């Protein structure tokens, strides 16, 4: 009897396992499909070219304009400045943690990085409103602290754990033989680090940076809360602006299901999906190269 049960239950369990393997592929597909479906509803009436190249995002004007360029540039500005700050800081600390810090301190530092990774984005957004925004407003004599720079600084802070941990992995993954060869030739620790270890870990570090960029581009709550509410083409990082992510989060509540505005937000989501897909794909390529 028991043997019969086993003969039936095992193939069922194994089918479940195989289906589960399929599940992730299905989900990616479904997400893309749903985004595409509702985006296409927009493009039935609103020209794709005007969406992709339009310079005005005015969803509630009459007629509404859904140009994605201001949002795209908003994301680009914020990402650019965030990356400018967090890459040197991140890679630098990764180098310190991996190579310089003594073992006891290394673990403490890694714990700190983990703590940072655990802070929810909404809390950082809150702190941006309460503290960082006013500080920047006073420092730069702006009319409002809710600007792109506030967002960039907080985003840089948030992306650090990603960059640090992956870079650190890449650095510690460099084979010992490389180091020993360098020391054998009389190089100092720093020279070895700068000339041998860093270059050989470069694929992993590039992957880390790309994943950090992906994290920044995809972040929603921080930018929603602190970068202001101005979907216009930014001319300076010290101005309020709007990213792709914040637009969806901020305007979705105001749309009516089935309206053009509603579909336009899905189109923005599709753009986001494609951008992060590409970034992640490239990052994965570099990670594979690093593993060899």
């Amino acid at each position: 009897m028991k043997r019969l049960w086993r003969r039936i239950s095992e193939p069922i369990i194994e089918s479940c396992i195989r289906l589960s393997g399929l599940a992730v592929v299905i989900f990616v597909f479904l997400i893309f499909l749903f985004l595409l479906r509702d985006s296409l509803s927009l493009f039935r009436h609103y020209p794709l070219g005007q969406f992709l190249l339009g310079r005005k995002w005015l969803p509630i004007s009459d007629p509404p304009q859904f140009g994605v360029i201001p949002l795209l540039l908003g994301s680009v500005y914020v990402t650019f400045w965030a990356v400018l700050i967090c890459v040197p800081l991140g890679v630098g600390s990764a180098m310190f943690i991996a190579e310089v810090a003594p073992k006891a301190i290394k673990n403490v530092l890694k714990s700190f990085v983990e703590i940072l990774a655990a802070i929810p984005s909404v809390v950082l957004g809150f702190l941006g409103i309460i503290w960082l925004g006013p500080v920047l407003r006073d420092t730069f004599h702006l009319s409002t602290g809710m600007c792109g720079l506030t967002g960039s600084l907080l985003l840089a802070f948030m992306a650090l754990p990603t960059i640090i941990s992956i870079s650190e992995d890449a650095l510690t993954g460099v084979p010992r033989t490389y180091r020993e060869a360098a020391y054998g030739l009389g190089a100092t620790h720093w020279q070895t680090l700068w000339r041998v270890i860093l270059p050989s870990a470069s694929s992993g570090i590039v992957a880390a940076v790309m994943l950090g960029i992906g994290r920044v581009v995809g972040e929603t709550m921080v930018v929603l809360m602190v970068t202001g509410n101005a979907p216009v083409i930014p001319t300076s990082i010290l101005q309020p602006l709007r990213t792709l992510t914040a637009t969806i989060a901020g305007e979705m509540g105001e749309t009516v299901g089935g309206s053009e505005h509603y579909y336009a937000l899905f189109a923005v989501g599709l753009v986001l999906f494609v951008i992060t897909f590409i970034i992640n794909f490239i990052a994965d390529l570099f990670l594979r190269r690093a593993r060899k």
Partner: protein
Amino acid sequence: MNEARLRQNIAFTVLGAVTLLIVIPILLVILYVAINGAGAITWSFLTEAPRNGMKAGGIFPAIVGTILLVIGTMLFSLPLGVLSAIYLVEYASDNLFTRMIKLSVVNLSGIPSIVYGLFGFTAFVLVLRFGTSILAGSLTLAIMSLPVIITASKEALESVPFTYREISLSLGATRWQTVRYCVLPYAIPGILTGTVLSLSRAAGETAPILFTVAAFYLPRLPRGAFDQVMALPYHLYVISTQVPNIPLSLSFATALVLIAIVFLMNLVSVILRAHYRKKRLW
């Protein structure tokens, strides 16, 4: 001191300073929230419902909501994630399909949280007609958590020595029996650690629940899976941006409670990891 040495000392000092530049703000952030928020954390704050349009009272429903969402997320993401990992490690062969699965995992982990929110809204709230509900929110968060659970489970399964499988198969056990008796039990610590970590992130997420479950002012507790619910991250978002004249200490207290819950879960994950590393059998 020769020149190379000097250069090294300068370089390492710079690197150290850079690291400090990162570590100090982390400390400051935690302290800032803790100091400003601790004052408002009273027993009644934690156990009462909000009153007066959020300007007074407690955040109990939001705490409950967050806990319910975490449980819901776990119920959906854990089995699916572990089974997917089992497939990848124990059953999949080296072909294009397997590469596609691995690529999909990487992709899922990179999708912005707001896009998950859009998907969750369309798929669960609209198409499946769950409405804005704990169910829709949990499902959305579950899909978001899948990559982390799959990756952690994969690592846990791969770390079990290959010889265990060889022994089991050579005695005539089936593949599933081998997984169930000789692999899975020893992978559970790693799976557990990864799951708790992934859930701690789900607890702090706002964007996926914006359109799928979160309600702002819902003083009563939910009665079922199809109810809306308050949640701490969403709560903090709304009181920071949309409620004027709220006592600042309440906002800080909410942030503190959220951080505390997330950190507690993180801590549990770290403790589990350390505990099982000591008890490792190989």
